């Protein structure tokens, strides 16, 4: 109750201060489906941090959002429960989330059915926006993009002939590996090894020894942070020495990975966001994120932040009217910490933001954006130096 009153006063003050800019500060209800317990919780937490910062900033803009958080525990049918509840019982104006692609796929048609605008922040599986749905919007880049940018960079800065693909056999892992394979083959790279491993195995030495025998020029990996560290530690042990280690987002873009400088230096990873990029507000976001959560900001948080900002602003402007929000998302254009966001129809996608990917390289435990040249002056360091 008290929060509401303060928010109301605050909004009133703002609307008085800036005449005509803000309307009646009735809170707009937005749902957030996320995985905050279960196996997906580590990243779910990061996403939630992004939402927390977005709520603060919306409030500063005089937009009072009542965020209804739903935990789907990473399970599609529970994600559906959450969506049903938000759409019909809580009557939200729009929904951001869910985290995983499996959940996003499961609820995509519910959004259509209940005519609720759904903005997907990070789930990257291609088919989510390939169903021709009109109420579903995706800010995140697709899985294909994660693989393409890395291999493309390697082909442009070096002369690799062969590639080995190591991935965890999860949803993201399998589809990223598939994308990498397709991209490599269409660009004349020979795929010499494909290893899909079960997440959480303590020992990858024998797999890596086998790959070393193939002597690949590129090693492409899709792993979460912990397995990423193990893979690199053990790659060093067995002396796997390609021209470049390429990590498709996820674990390799995680600060905990970068901190392991013995094995992380010079590893490339693809990401949707870095703080060095010239997108407006990126640096401030990173600074505030560090101060508030005492953690390094990662792209999941930035994607989540931008998604809720867009949804919040659009919903407030449309007075919570779902049809109007959908139309505004469809035709609108935003420029924020994720660069320019626009939901377009192309290559069989509907309402897909054509998000430019970035490549980072770890130097002395810090991520540096090194590719593409339009976003950075840094040059990628290639090939990978000899293991000490």
């Amino acid at each position, binding site marked *: 109750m*008290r929060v509401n009153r303060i928010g109301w006063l605050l909004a009133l003050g703002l609307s008085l201060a800036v005449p005509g800019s803000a309307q009646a500060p009735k809170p707009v209800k937005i749902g957030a489906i996320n995985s905050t317990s279960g196996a997906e919780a580590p990243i779910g937490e990061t996403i939630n941090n992004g939402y927390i910062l977005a709520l603060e900033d919306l409030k500063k803009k005089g937009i009072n959002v009542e965020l209804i958080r739903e*935990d789907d525990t990473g399970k*599609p*049918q529970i994600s559906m*429960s959450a969506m049903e509840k938000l*759409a*019909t019982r809580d009557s939200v104006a729009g929904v951001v989330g869910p985290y995983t692609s499996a959940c996003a796929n499961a609820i995509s*048609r519910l959004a259509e059915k209940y005519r609720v605008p759904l903005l997907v922040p990070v789930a990257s599986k291609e088919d989510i926006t390939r169903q021709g749905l009109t109420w579903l919007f995706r800010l995140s880049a697709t899985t294909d993009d994660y693989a393409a940018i890395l291999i493309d960079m390697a082909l442009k800065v070096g002369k690799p002939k062969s590639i080995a693909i190591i991935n965890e056999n999860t*949803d993201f892992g399998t589809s990223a590996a598939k994308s990498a394979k397709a991209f490599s083959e269409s660009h004349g790279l020979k795929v010499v090894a494909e290893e*899909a491993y079960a997440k959480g195995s303590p020992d990858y030495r024998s797999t890596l020894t086998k790959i070393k025998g193939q002597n690949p020029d590129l090693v492409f990996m899709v792993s979460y942070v912990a397995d990423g560290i193990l893979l690199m530690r053990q790659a060093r042990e067995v002396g796997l020495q390609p021209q470049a280690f390429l990590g498709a987002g996820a674990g390799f873009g995680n600060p905990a990975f970068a901190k392991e400088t013995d094995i992380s230096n010079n590893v490339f990873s693809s990401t949707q966001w870095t703080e060095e990029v010239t997108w407006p507000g990126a640096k401030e976001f990173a600074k505030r994120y560090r101060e508030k959560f005492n953690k390094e900001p990662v792209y999941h948080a930035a994607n989540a932040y931008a998604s809720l900002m867009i949804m919040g602003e659009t919903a407030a402007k449309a007075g919570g009217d779902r049809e109007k929000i959908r139309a505004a998302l469809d035709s609108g254009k935003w420029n924020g910490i994720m660069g320019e966001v626009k939901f377009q129809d192309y290559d069989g996608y509907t309402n897909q933001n054509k998000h430019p990917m970035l490549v980072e390289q770890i130097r002395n435990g810090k991520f540096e954006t090194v590719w593409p040249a339009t976003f950075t002056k840094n040059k990628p360091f290639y090939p990978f130096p000899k293991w000490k």
Partner: protein
Amino acid sequence: MASATTSRFSRSALIKLAVGLVLVGGLFAVPRYVSSPYALHIMILIFLSTIMGESWNILGGYTGQYSVGHAAYFGVGAYTTVMLMQFRQVPPWIGVWAGIAAVLVVALIIGSICFRLRGPYFVLASIAVAEIMRLSATNLDKFTKGAEGILATEIPVFIIGEHVVTDFLTKVPFYYIGLSLALLTIAVTWAVQHSKLGYYFQAIREDQDAAHSLGINIPLYKNIGLAISATLTALAGSFYAIYVGFVDPSTVLSLDLSVQIVLVCIIGGIGTIYGPVVGALALVPLSEALRSNAIAEGLFKSGIVDPASATGTFLKENLAHAHVLIYGILVVLVILFMPEGLLGFLRKLGARLKQGRA
């Protein structure tokens, strides 16, 4: 005396029948009066849990074979139906029969391996087999699309003759299918309990060696129990797959799911007809309430806790995180203090009340 007891028995049976009919009739009428899709969704999940619990009950409760690998049958049913629908355009009401056929084959293989084992060895073997199924579905990605799972894009419209029965666009058809399947599994359980089959099953459960010396063909009846149980579980799997529209190994073939199936039955009351119903009625709304933070909301609405206060913020932030913890604590408490499940506990309570009145 004798006539008095028979008449009382038949009267109570009649009352039971009447109550049952009214309940079932009421359930069939629900979609007419309840339009909230969320409420219907929760009901559908309750039906689904009931089907799973009842199916497991036939093998675990009556025959005494504690399988912790029922996800194998659920998953094979789900996968077969969705794969046929998505890759071969076979409508689900035909695909489900293929699903049952596939599950029966799997059950026969599993049965021939696991039924040689007893007690804990059987439990562990059933887990191992289900894990092999999960890993196979994950690794055979050319066939099953692996960990990416299969998204069912569209369910064909169900037409008999010229008449459109349903287009599956609302919750209502799923509600009726779920309700019918749940009633079917209850009816099957009732039939099993009131037949020779049930008698053989329970003999095997109570003492396998004694049952053997009575001339009961143990492998045969164990396999019959498994076949019934697996078929019904496959129905649950197919129903789930069509309803959710997405299957992947980590949801429909996981150990978590196997445990969930056992949980519904044991929390409700193992080896009884209505135990799994009680289990589903308790567990589904409970986990939904915990997950959606309804407890904190209730406290706020009733004015016991001010949402803006420190306690309020704490509850808001943490109860949502703690829902699995609370769930775990409740499971432990039920096992410790209601070893016969909720139904057994309610019956005891009822008996005690009656005694108190007499």
